[in-house]
């Protein structure tokens, strides 16, 4: 019995603890501040006008997605290498991948809206966009593998192998798509040779976005993982109850 199952038995109505509630409150404050800073305090861009504000959501979401998928791989590796094969690592990997898929979707949508305003088209077949689309599809596949059914151990084993395969697949796809086509804007802030041309408040808003989205990710991850533990517990319970019913029917 895990602690969460015990919590479930105790009819806990929430997946939150004192610590996660504090994290949640801090995240909400951080995101509200990001909205104010991104929409009101920071200036318009000289060239792009207000469309530059999309960046404050777009860049942090793809950052969270990369972070989430990296963590999925790490948790999966820990699950496979750990002798105890604790399912918590499997649930953390799954929760992380789900949030990652959500944030890739956000960055694809915001990116194509920005592209429509700036390049005049929602989509171009350039290397970075195409690999990001592949990233999205690959992890949707990962989530589908998790839903294949079977025991929790089977799910954990299959999905952790799949997570590690995806880590291998993504650089290969990225490399070959890169050979195929390159047009995306170079990363302008991270490039050491480029003169950083962002105004102070814009740069601050961007970094604030990274911080607040990372907090949001951590908050969601904690709750999703606990929810998964409860879902597993419910499934176990349903099975126990069904066996009990059969026994009663048979008069055992």
């Amino acid at each position, binding site marked *: 019995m895990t602690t969460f199952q015990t919590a479930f038995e105790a009819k806990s109505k929430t997946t939150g603890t004192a610590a996660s509630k504090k994290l949640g409150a801090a995240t909400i404050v951080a995101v509200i501040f990001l909205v104010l800073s991104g929409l009101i305090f920071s200036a318009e861009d000289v060239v792009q006008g207000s469309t530059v504000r999309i960046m404050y959501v777009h860049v942090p979401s793809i950052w969270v997605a990369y972070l989430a998928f990296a963590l999925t791989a790490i948790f999966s590796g820990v699950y*496979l290498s750990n002798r105890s094969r604790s399912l918590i690592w499997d649930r953390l990997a799954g929760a992380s991948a789900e949030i990652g898929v959500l944030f890739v979707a956000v960055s694809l949508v915001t990116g194509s809206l920005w592209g429509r305003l700036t390049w005049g088209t929602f989509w171009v077949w350039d290397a970075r966009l195409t690999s990001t689309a*592949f990233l999205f*599809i*690959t992890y*949707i*596949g990962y989530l*589908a*593998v998790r839903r*294949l*059914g*079977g025991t929790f*151990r*089977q799910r954990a*084993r*299959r999905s952790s*192998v*799949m997570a*590690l*395969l995806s880590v*291998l*697949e993504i650089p*290969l*796809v990225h*490399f*070959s*798509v890169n*050979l*195929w086509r390159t047009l995306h804007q170079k990363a302008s802030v991270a490039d050491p040779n480029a003169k950083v041309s962002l105004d102070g408040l814009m740069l601050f808003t961007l970094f604030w976005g990274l911080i607040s989205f990372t907090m949001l990710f951590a908050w969601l991850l904690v709750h999703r993982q606990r929810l998964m533990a409860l879902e597993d517990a419910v499934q176990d319970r349903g099975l126990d109850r069904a066996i009990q019913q059969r026994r009663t029917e048979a008069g055992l």
Partner: protein
Amino acid sequence: MTTRLQTVRRVSWAVVCKDLRIEWNSKVLLNQVAPFSLVVMIMFAFALDNEGILQRVAPGLLWLATLFSMLIIVQRSFAVETADGALDALRVAGTEPLGIFIGKSLALMVQLFALELMLLAVALVLYTVEPTATGYAETFATMVVATVGLGFVGTLYGGLGAGARGRETLLPLLLLPAVAPVLIGATRATEAAFESGGAQSSQGWPWIGLLAVFAGVFGAVGALAFGPMIEE
């Protein structure tokens, strides 16, 4: 005293022979998969409806038809393993998983290569492609290297979740993104070989290099991951 290498060699040979014998007796490749890929090639012609365009995009269509047919072959390759719990039996018998991986990959490669040769012949006739002698050499080199990669990756993803309900519908979603580098590399190399769209035949070799990297990576990873993957 047999070494592990000898065991692997013996197991993989047995698995190749078994898979190819099943194919020889059932003729699924000949009676179902090959006609399917032919239909796909004809449907492409209906969809594009222009001989100039067809000739230009023939390399891409050739490889797309190969990948679609591959999905069926991989499905079939693991359906015979899971139908009567054959894979479980192999596992319980302590069969070397590396041998199973190599054997199943090789059998898949043989079938894929046969299919590609047929599709090439179809493309020559239906899409009026006319490669030169070096073009043929380049096409065959592309086919060999691409098939090795496809064989490894197909066996790896085919074995993932073998025996689970609903995996038939899941395989295309998992496998197609994984083989995207092969589609890109093989199509560009074949374009160069066919000299379609003004491509030079010398431009194909770097793409064949990409295909070789892909085959090497998935061969190595498959050898490591296949064992843990099938022992559920």
